[in-house]
């Protein structure tokens, strides 16, 4: 599948790869430069592959609250909240962002690779009531503008009052240089930034507007490669890596998004009963890049696996996230890197945190 920005990526010399069935650029020349550009200035990402679902109606809030781990009651209009979408075993169907337009109108943003699965899950697991569920993914394009100068770029395109002030808040029906859009102060880079939702037909215009407005800040188009190194430095979990159907959400260190105090929801029992045998930890390595799927050992005993790993461009060293047995955390850990043992040094997450 192609996003509405495909031709733009070709024009910008993007190196196109297949990602979750979408043809998207892994980079436009250099992952390292794109990464640096987002940390220091501003970068532009096509994230139109992400899925968008809506739940609208009188019972939308209670229905949605019955299938997510976070508590969505009491959110203000224009607030965004991260949540897990748990299965009955306490694993994750997906991790999602919930946009509260009002108590009867929610937008849910999901991972590209899970859109079809999630839509089906919503249809079969939302309790019956007075609401309407819709998968609008095919109609919506999403562009992320990330980095400390993102706000300055947006101010050249939209009026000040349409720029969401708080992180994890959004404004709907924003006049984006003549285009109707939803602007949210969110992102997947560990940097300040925004995500702009527009109709497919408006995607190219919106993208070009930001590219042009960003010129004076040396904005760069950024690909999936930098998106991954940026999120990994910020220790943000990625579905299929840190999260999955068979990985208990209680073991991933996302308790801030799991509200066990609220009434029954899908998977609550399993989450409560989770033995928490495994934990998610961060580590760095000094001799080579430790990548996902590598096994982790204490001596001869396999204690877990590497769920994500890369070279962290800001820290200039190899970092990885591990899923290992809880009692192995303070032992001498080693990863098997293509037949070679590489020492791992556990370090607190996130690896990178922006200065406020």
């Amino acid at each position, binding site marked *: 599948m192609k996003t509405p920005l495909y031709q733009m990526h070709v024009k910008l010399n993007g190196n196109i790869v297949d990602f979750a069935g979408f043809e998207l650029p*892994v*980079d436009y020349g*250099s*992952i*390292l430069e794109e990464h640096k550009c987002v940390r220091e200035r501003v970068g532009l990402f096509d994230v139109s592959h992400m899925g968008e679902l809506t739940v609208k109606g009188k019972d939308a809030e209670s229905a949605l609250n019955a299938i997510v781990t976070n508590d969505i009651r009491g959110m203000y209009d224009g607030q965004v909240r991260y949540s897990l979408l748990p299965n009955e075993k306490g694993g994750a169907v997906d991790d999602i962002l919930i946009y509260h337009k009002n108590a009867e109108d929610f937008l849910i943003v999901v991972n590209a690779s899970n859109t079809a699965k999630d839509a089906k899950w919503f249809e079969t697991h939302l309790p019956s009531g007075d609401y309407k569920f819709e998968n609008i993914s095919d109609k919506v394009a999403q562009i992320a503008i990330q980095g400390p100068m993102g706000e300055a770029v947006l101010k050249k395109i939209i009026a000040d009052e349409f720029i969401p002030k708080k992180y994890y808040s959004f404004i709907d029906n924003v006049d984006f240089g003549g285009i109707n859009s939803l602007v949210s102060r969110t992102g997947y880079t560990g940097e300040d930034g925004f995500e702009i939702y527009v109709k497919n037909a408006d995607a190219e215009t919106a993208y070009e507007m930001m590219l042009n407005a960003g010129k004076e800040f040396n904005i760069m188009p950024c690909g999936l*490669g930098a998106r991954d*190194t940026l999120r990994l430095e910020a220790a943000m979990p990625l579905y299929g890596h840190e999260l999955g159907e068979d990985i208990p959400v209680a073991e991933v260190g996302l308790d801030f998004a799991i509200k066990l105090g609220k009434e029954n929801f899908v998977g609550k029992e399993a989450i409560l009963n989770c033995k928490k045998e495994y934990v998610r930890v961060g580590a760095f390595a000094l*001799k*080579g*890049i430790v*990548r996902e799927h590598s096994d982790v050992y204490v001596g001869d005993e396999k204690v877990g696996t590497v769920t994500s790993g*890369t*070279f962290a*461009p800001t820290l200039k060293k*190899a970092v990885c996230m591990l899923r290992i047995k809880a009692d192995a955390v303070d032992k001498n850990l080693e990863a098997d890197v*293509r037949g*070679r043992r590489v020492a791992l040094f556990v370090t607190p997450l996130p690896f990178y945190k922006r200065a406020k």
Partner: protein
Amino acid sequence: MRYLYTKTHEYICIGSGKTVQVGISDYAQKQLGDIVYVNLPEMGQTFSKGEVFAAVESVKAASDILGPCDGIITKVNLELDGRPELLNEDPKKNWICEAEIRGSIPTDLMSEEKYLKYIATL
């Protein structure tokens, strides 16, 4: 100086005498993208044709370096330890190691001209 290449994109640079320099081709560094780590071989280590003796890693992937011939390593380019990006900047100037060839130069190595034709087909 004469450069000979393997199909797996290593080169040997032949000067006078038995010592050669071993590195990766410009095509290889471009394919890898930003190189961020070089798993260097050790001095005195021997290598055999077609067998892994070092590796280069970019943000995207790890790539083995295979012996272009049989040899023994006499010098390692330790500068690559702290500055792996030198391989992106100039892979010919920044060879990975110097080695003494054991036996004769394999006949399947390609001249620069032949190698350029070969990569044009990839």
